[in-house]
């Protein structure tokens, strides 16, 4: 590439920024504010999802076996469960172990020493990777001949799963709306900066600039505006997160949530990307309006 042209391109971008500084700063500020609002919502949504997942993840399936089940049956079942891709882990609880647990739990309240036979069955405690797999897996296990019955607190679990799905959808809807709103705000701001330079675009066309020569510096400026706004937004959000997150975790100990588990890096990347991409597209669309055929 000819050095003169590269130099011209960068000089155009730099000059447009410095000589329209007030406009550029207003646009960057607007993008930054939009990104802060979007960032707070993205963080809230991630935290809430994490909270719901933490609750739902506590659900286990208890598989009680019939007394007829032989050790070989138990062994086969154990292997089958371990091989199942949906299963996170499986623990076998023998009759004896179950009785011990019960003794400990009822110690001082009921004297189990009076019972001579162990009425408790052998069982498996199964934990799935995805809580959504709990009901179907429980159904499959119930159908096995060695299984007496299966318990996973079906009503509560199913309700929790429904709540998670509904809230997840609502959260997604809110985020999509917010994304659209953010994009529109950024688009409108950048459109105004381009509109203010409509005369310039006409002059560029008059002196024989091709559409691409006119468009590229604008598109790049849009990208830089979005990027700068996004980064400034992060500069506001990051210290706020650092200060508030530990306090929130400390003050809400009853919630099964550790805010440190929220993937803030991921959110930060999303925010900067939203700023940059929307900024670039907004410039592109805005300039194209003025580059119509004569």
């Amino acid at each position: 590439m000819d050095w003169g042209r590269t130099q011209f391109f960068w000089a155009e971008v730099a000059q447009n920024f410095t000589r329209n500084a007030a406009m550029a700063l207003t646009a960057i500020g607007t993008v930054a504010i939009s990104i802060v609002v979007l960032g707070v919502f993205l963080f809230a949504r991630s935290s809430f999802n994490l909270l719901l997942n933490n609750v739902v993840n506590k659900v286990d399936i208890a598989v009680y076996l019939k007394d007829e089940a032989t050790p070989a049956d138990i062994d086969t079942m154990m292997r089958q469960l371990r091989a199942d891709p949906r299963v996170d882990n499986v623990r076998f609880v023998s009759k004896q172990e179950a009785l011990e647990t019960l003794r400990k739990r009822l110690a001082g309240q009921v004297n189990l020493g009076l019972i001579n036979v162990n009425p408790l069955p052998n069982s498996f405690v199964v934990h799935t990777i995805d809580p959504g797999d709990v009901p179907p897996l429980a159904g499959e296990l119930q159908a096995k001949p060695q299984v007496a019955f299966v318990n996973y607190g079906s009503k509560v679990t199913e309700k929790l799963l429904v709540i998670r799905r509904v809230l997840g959808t609502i959260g997604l809807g809110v985020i999509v709306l917010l994304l659209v709103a953010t994009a529109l705000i950024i688009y409108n701001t950048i459109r105004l900066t381009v509109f203010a330079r409509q005369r310039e675009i006409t002059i560029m066309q008059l002196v024989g600039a091709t559409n691409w020569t006119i468009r590229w510096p604008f598109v790049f400026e849009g990208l830089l505006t979005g990027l700068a706004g996004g980064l400034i937004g992060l500069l506001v959000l990051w210290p706020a997160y650092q200060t508030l997150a530990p306090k929130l975790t400390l003050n809400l100990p009853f919630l099964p949530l550790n805010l440190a588990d929220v993937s803030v890096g991921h959110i930060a990347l999303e925010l900067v990307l939203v700023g940059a991409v929307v900024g670039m597209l907004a410039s592109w669309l805005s300039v194209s309006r003025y580059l119509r055929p004569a």
Partner: protein
Amino acid sequence: MIVFEDVSLVYPNGVHALSNISLNVARGEFLFLVGSTGQGKSSVLKCIYREACPTSGDVVVDDWRLSTLPHGKVPFLRRKVGVVFQDFKLLRGKTVWENVAYALQVTGATSRDVARRVPRALELVGIAHKSKMFPHELSGGEQQRTAIARSLVNNPLIMLCDEPTGNLDPETSSEIMALLARINSKGTTVVVATHNQASVDRMRRRVVRLVHGRIAHDEERGRYHVGLG
């Protein structure tokens, strides 16, 4: 150099700007377009630099038949047709030097080329000493000189001027017209739409009078009031 073949132009708002214009401007010619406001002078110029497309008929500029010129080629036509306006149309954020350089840079000229040709154009119009100033720091005449330098720097075949002295005092107007005559003497075809009676009468070039979008009179070495009886 410029040929109008039975050109009519109706704007989208229904205004009939030009009706059956046929005109031939030779290479190196100097032509005044006269007529009161709204008679079609600017529309004739717009058809030449493809800001407007004739509704019927065709315009040929050098080797370009404009009715079939693809949109993507318009910038290349405009590099060969310099345009100067009453309101100068300078880029306010750029200095005199940068305004003139811009017209070269968009053609992909090398920095060496720019450094060589911009000072030459600025000297020709007599504005080299103000090359670092911004348009708002210049007088009207100086701004118009800058605009002329900008349209000159690409060595255009044709120079179109739409009321180039409309915002200038009589003395400055004469200087600008003299500058255009000098540019014309170097071989550039110059078409000037103007109300500047004094200059037209003094220069005695070809004068075309437009009335209601038609050519009412066309005379070699004419005067401003040509065709008005």
